[in-house]
């Protein structure tokens, strides 16, 4: 379980992508806190802004996107005020990120030990290659990659092994916070389960804080302490994992949970959600989920709800409003 120390505080964040058709607001006034030692699951469908939020934490939103508003506090220091060279000391060393497709994240011309050695030497000037290699070997050994495979090229490894190398790079500098963006999407179920077990174990061992970005509710249920649900560039609900699955508060969370098949139930009736995700160039005027929401009332179409506190959870929905207007 997590402590009360906040490692990251995102305050009123807005990320804009100026594109030919206009300004696309990928993230709109998002606030989120991440506690030391916890696993936070960040879930949502494609295009909801979950990956962009991950990049924002590193202050590395891909161009043409820009952070147009808000703050990202890392140990109470605003990352958005830092210079590129200051950021470079944080990225990889304090906060690292791993991505969905390990084949495109690894250099195909570089043996796997090199990837880790280079990372160590870049950040810790003066480390000699020999020590760095020892550390790489130790780390990969922990991840179940034997010494003999250290000099393989990425294409010689299986998908699961490549993804473990990625984690190795992520952990090479003892990062405090690991952001994993869909780390298992390219893996098969059995390998995925192995990988998640390993991730859990490493988290304990290294005292990591983990942000797991995924669209898979099953993974999130198995690994997270807390869950944040995103939709159309906004956070709909933040809750402890168990209570979220037991009783989803936001209508979108409810719809999402009703539409995923559960292998353990023998006759589950799946419900589909009508409509489409919002067009972020022309988002709905009120709550972004309102056109698809079965509980929507007048106010929902008029103004966008901010997060309300409800039973130690946060819900952006007027159903739980305590400021009746």
């Amino acid at each position, binding site marked *: 379980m997590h402590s009360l120390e906040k490692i990251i505080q995102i305050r009123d964040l807005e990320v804009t992508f100026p594109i030919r058709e206009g300004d696309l607001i990928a993230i709109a006034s998002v606030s989120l806190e991440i506690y030391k030692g916890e696993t936070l699951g960040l879930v949502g469908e494609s295009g909801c802004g979950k990956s962009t939020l991950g990049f924002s934490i590193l202050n590395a939103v891909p161009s043409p996107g820009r952070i147009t508003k808000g703050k990202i506090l890392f140990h109470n220091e605003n990352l958005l005020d830092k210079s590129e060279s200051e950021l470079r000391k944080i990225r990889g060393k304090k906060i690292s990120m791993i991505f969905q497709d390990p084949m495109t994240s690894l250099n195909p011309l570089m043996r796997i030990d090199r990837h880790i050695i280079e990372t160590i030497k870049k950040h810790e000037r003066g480390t000699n290659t020999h020590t760095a290699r020892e550390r790489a070997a130790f780390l990969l050994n922990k991840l179940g990659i034997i010494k003999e495979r250290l000099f393989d090229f990425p294409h010689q490894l299986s*998908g699961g092994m490549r993804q473990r190398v990625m984690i190795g790079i992520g952990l090479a500098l003892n990062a405090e916070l690991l952001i994993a963006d869909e780390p298992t999407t390219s893996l*098969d179920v059995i390998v*995925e389960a*192995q990988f998640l077990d390993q991730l859990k174990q490493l988290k304990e061992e290294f005292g990591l804080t983990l942000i797991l970005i995924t669209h898979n509710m099953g993974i999130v249920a198995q690994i997270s302490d807390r869950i944040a649900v995103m939709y159309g560039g906004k956070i709909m609900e933040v809750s402890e994992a168990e209570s979220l699955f037991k009783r989803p508060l936001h209508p979108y969370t409810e719809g999402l949970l009703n539409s*995923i*098949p559960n*292998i353990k139930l023998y006759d589950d009736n*799946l419900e589909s959600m009508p409509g489409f995700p919002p067009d972020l160039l022309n988002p709905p005027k009120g709550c972004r989920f309102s056109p698809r929401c079965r509980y929507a009332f007048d106010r929902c179409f008029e103004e966008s709800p901010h997060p309300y506190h409800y039973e130690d959870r946060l819900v952006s929905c007027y159903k739980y409003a305590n400021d009746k207007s």
Partner: protein
Amino acid sequence: MVLEPIVELQNVKRYFEVERDFIQKFNPKARKFVKAVDGVSFNIEKGEVFGLVGESGSGKTTTGKLILDVIKPTAGKILFEKTNLTQLSKREMKLFRRRMQVIFQDPYASLNPRMKTGKALTQPLEIHGIGTVKERKQRVLDMLEHVGLTPPQTVYTRYPHQLSGGQRQRVVIARALILNPDFVVADEPIAMADVSMRVLLLDLMMNLKREFNLTYLFITHDLATAKYICNRIAIMYLGKIIEIGSLKEVFRDPLQPYTKALLSAIPIPDPEAKRKEPIPKGEIPNPINPPSGCRFHPRCPSRMQRCDKEVPPLNEVTPGHFVACYLYY
């Protein structure tokens, strides 16, 4: 349901030769093969949804392509309503092509970006010489409406890039059904769709199945989806079928240790449900040199002495439930 097979596979094999380097080309002994499909037999009954489930590299897509005659088998027979497809000429095959269609995973790759929806759907009718120009257009518009693309007149003139992912997959489904087929191979049809769109697409496919009396071969890696729509499922591992049975039996009482592992590896969307079975170590082995005997034996928690020596045959354990494992021999 009347048990009458629409598709029968009899000991079908498909080997792909691995490219050799320059020097090895002069050595015929260095020839290597990937046994993508290695002796697969099963029937698909008329009117059912038959699920073919396996991890990547198990040969499930190759099996689908073999049935559609997109690739030819190395050995074995594929019968479509008792006719052996492997012996037909191109012209004879064309008559059957009309009756079997396919839906692929990626709606971005399966639609020509320079072809409007109308053209993409009219083309199959033209190729098979069905109807007049006017009739074809009407048929296409009707089909668009059937798959929920409304108003059809507007969608008719749209290019793929003007449609959303979900709409595109509907166009692909419409194109597969425009020739009024009897049998459709759906190869991971919802894997690219968003979670909230998946159920809609599955429901659409099931409604169309009833409406047009279709039989589906549903290829997927996702057991949870298979469970939602299939009547019977077959589990594939490294080119071989290791278990076949009704959906209920396989899910309630999985027999092959691999099937058990596959079922328990699926992350359950419930934080309180914990995994019971241990996850087998390792990954799918190299298909060029697959393990001897039962192909799962190196990872199997309950392997016995004979497992690495002999290949277990598919054996009927309870009526309709077949398994390839010496534990049940």
